[in-house]
């Protein structure tokens, strides 16, 4: 156990947390403002990753591919909102679960239909393939640094958008009191469509950036969707700040747990027990974190509603 390992895990946790934040930001706004459970949010992430992979393969440049994929995913999100999702806002949570689960199934199978069952290759740009020496003896992959940089930039941009613009003001008004925002003349329908496009774009950024690290494959959206839900429940539904704190918390706890708990257990208990219990406890950790947060703060860390 040394400093380099800890620093590396901290950076990995930060990187994962920032990507989770990109997913959770869109989800928490949709959830908080429209009071809508969107199980199809992970599908936007998957579709985004596939679009980025295809556009990268077609153009030969990761940057162009990412931009094109993000634009495509935003368009897809807007179309989904206009055709199906806006009919679900007024319905109860159960109808939303059923409707968006149906969309999830259709997206999964549609992607399998178009791209096949095999994972689609998406490589990191060649210039960023190697490691960078951050401190003497401490090497860190350049591509992961890029992810951290982009994640921070997008988070900053989002923060400026939410706190410094008229659109952001309307979004915050909608999140804290939807009826009052409606009464004050916030153009809700257009706002919702725009939010959905934005949420889809953020998903695609995360999907495209994580693509080279994780596999671009059918079903990639589901596991991360559950994590995004955990993040927004910890942070408080509808709160961007909560999403950021929750995402970093989950990212760091999950990453650290996965690498440190097995090491810790090996010292504390017999090897065969440790090899069983270590991964289990590491996977369970964030759910325990969420249950604990809800036990003490039933509305999350930063409740958006009064």
């Amino acid at each position, binding site marked *: 156990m040394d400093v380099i390992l800890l620093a590396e895990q901290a950076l990995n946790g930060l990187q994962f947390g920032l990507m989770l934040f990109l997913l959770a930001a869109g989800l928490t706004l949709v959830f908080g403002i429209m009071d809508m459970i969107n199980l199809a949010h992970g599908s936007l992430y998957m579709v985004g990753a596939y679009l980025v992979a295809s556009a990268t393969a077609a153009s030969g440049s990761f940057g162009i591919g990412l931009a094109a994929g993000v634009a495509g995913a935003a368009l897809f999100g807007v179309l989904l909102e206009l055709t199906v999702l806006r009919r679900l806002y007024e319905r109860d*949570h159960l*109808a939303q679960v*059923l409707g968006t689960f149906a*969309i999830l199934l259709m997206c999964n199978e549609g992607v399998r239909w178009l791209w096949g069952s095999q994972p689609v290759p998406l490589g990191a740009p060649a210039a960023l393939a190697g490691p960078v020496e951050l401190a003497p003896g401490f090497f860190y992959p350049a591509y992961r640094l890029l992810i951290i940089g982009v994640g921070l930039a997008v988070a900053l941009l989002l923060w400026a958008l939410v706190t410094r613009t008229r659109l952001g003001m309307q979004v915050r008004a909608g999140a804290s009191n939807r009826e009052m925002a409606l009464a004050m003349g916030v153009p809700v329908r257009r706002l919702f469509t725009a939010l959905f496009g934005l949420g889809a774009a953020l998903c695609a950024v995360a999907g495209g950036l994580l693509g080279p690290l994780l596999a671009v494959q059918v079903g990639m959206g589901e596991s991360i969707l559950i994590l995004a839900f955990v993040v927004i429940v910890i942070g408080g539904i509808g709160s961007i700040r909560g999403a950021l704190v929750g995402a970093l918390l989950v990212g760091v706890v999950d990453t650290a747990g996965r690498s440190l708990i097995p090491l810790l257990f090996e010292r504390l208990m017999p090897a065969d027990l440790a090899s069983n219990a270590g991964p289990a406890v590491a996977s369970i950790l964030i759910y325990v974190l969420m249950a604990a947060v809800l036990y003490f703060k039933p509305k999350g860390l930063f409740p958006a509603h009064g």
Partner: protein
Amino acid sequence: MAKTPSRLKPLPQKTASSSRLDHPLRWWIALPVLAALLAWPLVAPLIGAEFYVTLASRILIFALAATSLNLILGFGGLVSFGHAAFVGLGAYTVGALMQAGITAAWIAWPAAMLVAALAAAVIGAISLRTQGVYFIMITLAFAQMLYYTVVSLKTYGGDDGLSLPGRSTLGALDLSADTTFYYVVLALAVASFVFVARLVNARFGHALQGTRENATRMEAVGQPVLRIRLVAFTLAGALAGLAGALLANHGGFVSPSLLQWQQSGTLMIMVILGGVGHLWGGVVGAVVFLVAEEWLGHLTEHWVFFLGAVLLTVVLIAPNGVMSLARRRRLEP
């Protein structure tokens, strides 16, 4: 006043207030259904459909699981997003006992119910303190914890799951014969269904539906809301455990995928599809979902896509499930 705006017209459902909490099990519906189910293994071979006896067992098991979820989701208003965990626990109990050499159904199946009920009691006691969306998420969290626990149990196959050497043994009955197994499943499913029907119409069931309608008011008239909910949650867990025990026997295989959150979603969808808070909701939902799956699976390789399309259509045109279409037609002559 001029014309009354149409939206102020009393909703049709509201007029029948005296019977809103009653869900009678009407014999002229139940008996023909039961007769058809009893006759199915005799009829199926005649039309060259032996395979569909196995499918019918599967549908009955899922009908049992969905009915148990409907008890808390439909009648208790508790949107539990972790019900598959209890099904999975029941299945793993049977698998674990079988690995230990205990194959007797009369030990393994009640044990499965007990394990699932205990887990439900503990999870319920913690989760029921939260409400709304947070309840959905915390039940999901607990189900995920159990899922990852099972994945890490190397003794029981871990990620790959556990193949069972055979079905449980039940006295003189040979459960390895698909038809015998079908009748055992049918008997248990019918017994559970009648139990849920009686429960819903009993004082307890009325109190449970009361907590769904207005928990604060129930509290005010002195009903122990939390205890009522916890009992319902535990009972639902036990029935789900029984479904899991049967499912393990049906497939001869238990795997962590039984506890996956998509499985909880599927169960929930069966209930929503059939009709939330409708006595037959779970049964109808299981039949519609599994038959649609089977039928589409024969038609096209990409059947999941069309299954999604069917589900989406149902959400948009039959907002309260398939059973609501019949009710709506009755109420709007």
